[in-house]
C-alpha cells in the first residue's frame, strides 16, 4: 500500500538547511494500522505530508497504491488525494463558510459523485461520527471535538483506502479523544490502511506496527 525508500527531506530557510527526514525506508501493507511516534520536530508531520502527496521528498522514493508520487504533477496529486487518501489535520481545518454537511460533501463533489449518492453518504458518515443533528451547523458553532469528528467524516467522504491522521487527538480532552479512538477502531475493523501520528496511548494500542522517528531517522520498527 505504502512504500518509502531512502526518503529524505531538507528545508532551506535563508542560508540554513534543516534536514527533517533522513534515509527513511519502510513499507505499510494494505489493511494495517500503523502509528508513527516521536518527539516534536522528529519529522512525523513531514512524513505524513509526503505520504499524502501534500509535500514532496528531497531525496528517495514514495509509492502509494503503486503510484510513484515523486514524478506526478499537481493535478494528478489533487485527484489522488481526493479519491485515494483521507487526511485529518491536528487543527481540524474545516472550511468556516461551509456547514458540517457541506464540509463533508465537497470532496465528493470534486470527484463528481451523483447528488443522491452524496446525500446518502453525508447521512451515513455523520451518523458514524455521531453528528447527524449538526448537519446544518457551521464550524464556529461546534466544539473542538465535534469539529475533529467532522474532519474525520470529510476524510472518509470518498471512502479512501488510505487514511492518514496527524495527531488527531492532540487538541482534544479525554472524552472527545475517546470518540476519535472509536472512529479509528471502526476504520481498522473495516480493513482500511491507517497511518496515524500520535502520542495517544489508546491509539497506540490499536497499532499493528509502530514507526518511531527520532531526529528525522527511523529509530525502531515493531
Amino acid at each position: 500500500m505504502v512504500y518509502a525508500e531512502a526518503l529524505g527531506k531538507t528545508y532551506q530557510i535563508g542560508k540554513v538547511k534543516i534536514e527533517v527526514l533522513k534515509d527513511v525506508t519502510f513499507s505499510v501493507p494494505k489493511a494495517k494500522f500503523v502509528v508513527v511516534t516521536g518527539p516534536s520536530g522528529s519529522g512525523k508531520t513531514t512524513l505524513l505530508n509526503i505520504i499524502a502527496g501534500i509535500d514532496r521528498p528531497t531525496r528517495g522514493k514514495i509509492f502509494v497504491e503503486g503510484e510513484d508520487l515523486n514524478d506526478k504533477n499537481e493535478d494528478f496529486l489533487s485527484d489522488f488525494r481526493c479519491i485515494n487518501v483521507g487526511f485529518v489535520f491536528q487543527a481540524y481545518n474545516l472550511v468556516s463558510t461551509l456547514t458540517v454537511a457541506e464540509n463533508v460533501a465537497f470532496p465528493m463533489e470534486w470527484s463528481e459523485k451523483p447528488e443522491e449518492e452524496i446525500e446518502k453518504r453525508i447521512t451515513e458518515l455523520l451518523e458514524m461520527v455521531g453528528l447527524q443533528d449538526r448537519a446544518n451547523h457551521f464550524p464556529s458553532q461546534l466544539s473542538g471535538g465535534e469539529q475533529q469528528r467532522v474532519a474525520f467524516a470529510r476524510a472518509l467522504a470518498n471512502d479512501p483506502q488510505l487514511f492518514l491522521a496527524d495527531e488527531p487527538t492532540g487538541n482534544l480532552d479525554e472524552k472527545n479523544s475517546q470518540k476519535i479512538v472509536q472512529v479509528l477502531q471502526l476504520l481498522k475493523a473495516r480493513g482500511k490502511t491507517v497511518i496515524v501520528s500520535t502520542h495517544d496511548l489508546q491509539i497506540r494500542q490499536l497499532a499493528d506496527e509502530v514507526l518511531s522517528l527520532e531526529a528525522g531517522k527511523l529509530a525502531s520498527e515493531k
Partner: protein
Amino acid sequence: MSEAAFPINDLLRRKLQTSLIIGTLTLSVASTLFLLLYGSRLGFNLSSTTGTLTAGLTTTLTQFLLFIGILIFAVGAVLTSFIAFLMMAQRTRDFGLIKAAGCPNNLVAGYFVTELLITTSAGCIFGVILGFSMDYLTANIVFSKYPLPNLWFAPLVFIVFFVLALFFGALPLLKASRMSPVNALSPVNYYNLTPENKHKPLSRHGITWKISTRSLIRRQSANLRIVALLSIVFILLTVSVAGGIIASGTTISWVQQTTNKNTIAIATNSMGDQYELLLSKFSGASETGVFNYSDPTLAIPETVIEQLSNLPTVNIVDSRLVLNEQVSEIDNYTIDPDTMVTSTVGGNREGTSIVIGVNPENLSGTWNVEGRLLNENDNFEAVIGDSISQSMYSPDPSMHITLANPLVEGISIQNNTFNIVGVCVDPINNGLVTYVPIERLENITGLSNPNLLLVTLNNSKDQSTAIAQIKSLIQSIDPNLNVFPLNSVVEKNTSFLASTWQTIMLLPFFILASAALCLVGYMMLAVDEQHQEFAVLRAVGAKPRIIIFVLAIQSLIVLISSFAVGISLGTIITLLILIPQPVITSVTILEITGWLLAALAAMFIFSLYPAFRLAKGSILKIMT
C-alpha cells in the same frame, strides 16, 4: 530591535504588499497632479495661453476636464484612504501579537505609524515626480514646448493626499490600539469580518461557488469600500471614454463640416497661403506678418466664377471676400414683460476679427451654430465665431456689463450695424471670425470682387483630374490664381482635436491602473484571510484551478457590481450633463462598449495575480 529597524524590516519582508501600496499611491498622486498641470495648460485657459482651438471648444474641453478632475480627485482620495486602510487593517493581527508579548501600546503604535509615514511619503514623493514627468512628456508631444507649469499644484496635491493617507491609515491603528490583544488577534477584527454566519443552507451542492460567495459576504467592510472605489473609477472611465469618444466625434464633426472634404480653395498664391494659415491657427499656427486682405491684386475676376460654375465636375462655387476688420459690439435692451423694467444687454467693446463675406445661397460648408445661419433675403445679418462671442459678448463685471447675449446684440463693421443671428464653431482664425452677406460687405468696403473661392467638387468624379482641369481653366483666365486643396489642413485640425481628446481620455487610465493595483491589494486581503482554508481545500483534493476559480468569482462579483453602478451613472452624466446634442453612431457605441469591456477584462485578469501566485505555491507554503 530598534524602533526604526522594525518598520523597515517589516516593509521589506512584505515586498509585494509594500510595492503595491507605494505604487497605488504614486499613480494616484501622479494622475491627479498631471491632470491639474495639463488641465491648466490645456483646458482651463487655453485660447489665451496657447492660441489653439476656438473658445467654444475650449469651453467644452474645460467642462469635461473639470468634471474628470473632480472625479479623479475623488477617486484619488478614496483610493488613498482605501489603500492606507487596507495596509493598516492587515497589521491589526501583528499589533495584537506584539501587544500580547508585552510591548507597550505607544511603542507598537509607533512602529506602525512609522511604516505608514514611510509608505505614504514614498508614494507621494514618487507621485509628484511622475506627475511632473508625465506633464513634461505630454506638453512636449502635444504642444512641442514646455512652459513652466504652476508649481503650487505639487505641494497642494502632496499635502492633501498625504494627510488623507495618514488619516485613513491611522484609523485601523487607533482601533487596534484600543483593543485587547485577544480581540486584535481575532480574524473578526483584523479582517473586519462579519462575526456570525447567517446563511441558511438551501442545497448542499455548488460548494465551490458557496465558498466563494460566502467568504465575500463575510468581508462586508472591505467589500463596501472596494465597490465604492471601483464604482467611482468606472464612472470616471465611462465619462472619459464614452464622453471623450462622443465629444471627440461631435467636435470633430463641427470642425469638418465647416470645410467640405471635396472642397478646394482658389485664390492668388499669397491669399491661398493666408487662408490656409487662418485655418491652421486652430492647431497652433501663428501669423508672421501683416497681411493686406484689401489688396486689389487679390481680386478674382467674375469670369472665373462663371466658367467654374459651368464645369460638370463642380457642385458649388462659394465666393468669399475675406477681410481683417475692426469690429464693435452694439448693445441692446430687453424689457421684462412683468415689471416693464428695461435692462441693457452687452456694451460697446471693440476687437479685431476676420470678416468673411459669403453668399448664403452658395455655402460650401455648414457650421454647428447656436441660433441660425444667414438668411438669403436679409443683408443686415451676421453670424459670429464662438471666440468673438466669448471675448466680446460675455458679461464683464470690470466693464459693468452684467448682461450679455450675442443673439440679441449687434456687431458694427466700418460703422455699419449687423444683427447677430448665430454663433458658430469655426476653426478659421480660431473662431475670431464674423460672417456677413458678401453683397453688403462689398458695398461697405467698396471692393467689388471676392478674393477667395471655395469650390466643392462633384463626389463621383476623379478628383485629381478635376483639380487639374480647374487649375488649367483658372490660370488661362488669370495666371496668378492657383488651386489649394484644403484636405491636409482640415485633417491636421481634426487630428489635433482628436489627439487633444485622446490625451484627456488617457488621464483616467492612470487612475484605472492605480485602481487595478488597489484591486490586487484587495485580492491579497482575500487570499490572506482564506489562505488556511485554501490549503485545506488543496490538501483534501482541490486542484489549483479550483482555488483560482474561488478567487475569480469573488473578483468578478466585486468588479461586475462596481461596473454596473459606474457605467449606469457614468452614461447618465455623459449624455445628460456633459455633451448636449451628441453625435452618436453605432460605431461610436461599439467603440465605447469595446473600450469599457476591455478595461473590465484587463482589471479582472490583473486582479487574478494573487490567485495565480497562491495556486502556484505548495500546500504547505499556502498553509503558513
